């Protein structure tokens, strides 16, 4: 089992793009009991990864509930860096 932050980043090397909610949904099976698997903490992890060039934003919009959803993806360089430091 990987640390939660690693699993969040690694998820982006396996999907085209994902939002905070997508990440939580994908990881809740394995990490459902982790306190840090919540919208606020996962979004902070994604924005930090974006600030450090590991991820980039692809699009955003308001869902029906009026919640802002931001989608991110790992570009080639970001994915390579994630895979270099975080092994499967």
């Amino acid at each position, binding site marked *: *089992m*990987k*640390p*939660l*932050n*690693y699993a969040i*980043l690694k998820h982006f090397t396996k999907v085209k793009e994902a*939002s905070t909610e997508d990440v939580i949904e994908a990881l809740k099976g394995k990490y459902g*009991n*982790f*306190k*840090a698997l919540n919208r606020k903490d996962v979004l902070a*992890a994604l*924005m*930090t*990864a974006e*600030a*450090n*060039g*590991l991820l980039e934003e692809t*699009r*955003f*919009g*308001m*869902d*029906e509930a009026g919640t*802002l*959803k*931001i*989608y991110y993806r790992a570009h080639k360089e970001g994915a390579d860096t*994630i895979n*270099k*430091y*975080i*092994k499967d």
Partner: protein
Amino acid sequence: MNEGGEVVNASAIAAKKKLSASFFKKGVFVAILSGICYGLYSAFLTLGMTKGVWADWYGVNTAALSVFVITYLLGALGSAVNDTCSAGWALLNVSVKGKLGDFFRTINTTPGRVMILAALIGGPISSTAYVVGLQMAGSIVIPISALCPAIGAILGRVLFKQELNKRMILGIAICVIASFMIGSTSVGGEAKEGMFLGICIAFIAALGWGFEGCVAGYGTSMIDYEIGITIRQTISGLSNLIILVPIFGIISGGGVGLSQDLIVQAFTSGPAMIFFVISGFFALYAYSLWYKGNSMCGAALGMACNGAFSFWGPFFCFIILGVICGIDGWSLPPIVWFAAVLMALGILVIAMNPLDLFRKREDKLYETT
């Protein structure tokens, strides 16, 4: 409507802009707060080292410790006790937040090992280089530590391709000059033998701290920052206790036995330990918020905001040791206050083009007319 079914309207754009701006502002706030915590931790550490058994070691010295032991070994021991207390706080923090398992899972990974390296370089290696430099060259090395934000910014540019433009370089230069001004108040007129070598050794400390801030800041883009700081304080505390203090014991001629004896006395000195527990608490936030701030707004800005510790350190020593505890010799000369204002200006220049403040004001005026 985008492909996910979400609506991209004016309120979505406004919410997105607000989120991005608040993330950046939070990064700056966190980095500034780290400098304040650094000042508080320095003040309580200094206070702790005047209480209990430390008062005897640095005062009457009934244990007849040599000058070498008092200068080098006790300095390293103070850091070791502080970092060990801080590691205790960090472990408690990750336990309460349910991250203790991730702490153990992170240690033996590549980013975890990089964090350990940063902790060793920034912890015992830089701290020792700084103390040795101080002893060899005198107080002239104190302003050298002011160079670490500049070194961190350059390393961030070279290692991680972080932004470093001319305006940011100007801001960093202003901050370094301001720190230098604060540090210069501690410089005496002495010119010791081996001064040049001492300055070179002190430069290793600045290089190490610059490396730590830049690498550990980037590391926290992968590692949860609270887990990162737990690794840092645990490694720093243990390496100081197990490696550095015994090495100084051996060099002093007292052997490992002397260092063990002093370690036990330090940890069982109740009046001092109260303040080490407090300094360890602030050290936890000084370093964790430093790492977090650097990862949120880049090494250049993060380290400049944190670098204000060169003001917060003397400031909180003045408040806690001077004003509250009534110990003489901690007042701040006017140059320090001036340098603090200059440093705030430098941080502003790194963070943004100050002319934008006027442009925004003009925009608002146009909007209202």
